[in-house]
């Protein structure tokens, strides 16, 4: 099981600013270990967000995104108390979903 994300969702005017910190190795597949063996690629491929269960955001990522990535986006039509869920799926099929409440 992957480590939890840190999600902060705060109202700023009429929009909510969502800031997500994910814990992931994000191996590019181009690095070699101490023994000279290629470290297999391992990175997040898709990131999706849902507002109160309704999909509002999706992104496709590749190996060029940094280790422990940070993602920030704004959501319209939100109010305090709304639930924002963020899900990532990596190229090994592992997935993690975390939820935060807009404040």
């Amino acid at each position: 099981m992957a480590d939890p994300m840190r999600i902060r969702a705060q109202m700023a005017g009429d929009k909510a600013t969502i800031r997500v910190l994910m814990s992931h190795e994000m191996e590019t597949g181009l690095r070699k270990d101490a023994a000279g063996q290629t470290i297999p690629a391992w990175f997040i491929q898709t990131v999706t967000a849902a507002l109160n269960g309704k999909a509002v955001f999706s992104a496709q990522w590749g190996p060029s995104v940094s280790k422990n990535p940070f993602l920030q986006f704004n959501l319209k039509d939100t109010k305090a108390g709304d639930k924002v869920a963020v899900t990532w799926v990596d190229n090994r099929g592992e997935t993690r979903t975390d939820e935060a409440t807009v404040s």
Partner: protein
Amino acid sequence: MPLIATAQKSAADGIAEYRKMLEDGNPAELFEAKGEDLWKTRRGPKQATLEQCDLGQGPGVVKGAWVQLPRFFADTGRVQDLESRLLTCMEILQGFNAAEIAKMPFDKGEQANVTALAAWVSSQSRGMKMALPQGHAEERRYYELGKRAFYFRGGPMDFSCASCHGEDGKRIRLQDLPNLTKNPGDGVGFAAWPAYRVSSGELWTMQRRLNDCFRQQRFPYPGFGSEATIALGVYMGVNAKGAESIAPALKR
């Protein structure tokens, strides 16, 4: 000359701007969360938590502990920094073998847990002023020891810590080097570690940072929690008196 001065200014500003941009999503937070979890989880042969660990402010008090470390501990009879003190707690409370953990490479096994714990403990003193005690004779001895180590030149390049960190305005490539012989300011130098290094994607404690200093000087590695590294911590920490701690910070 004014042209060069402008160029230097903008490089430093660029780094400051970069840090500002990343501040919001400092991945050190992930380590903090892990550390807090480890602190409260029953682990080790004794299946105990670290909640009774005495970091110098009494058992279980974490807030404000970091800005007063390294300090003298009566129960072990030694001056200890955060990492070596965490090892002591892990041994006494949880039954881990501290000597074995000290020998492990950074980021492996229990060492990685010590790093996470250090991230959490230091985060609980964020915004506080560095205030290392110097009341005990051992603490003063460690300061003198650290000062000697700081100015000790050696190795194939005849370097000392002071070669780079002994005066104002020195730089390596674009990076400004803090003058560690005096208070370099808020959140700079000693008051900024542990820190997350974006370039390697790792969280470094002071012990690991010092290890890298020894490597850059082409000195042999000092050993985890050794007297030399703790003495250097005392020297830098006492010099940084009054500086605001921003640990765990973010570094390139």
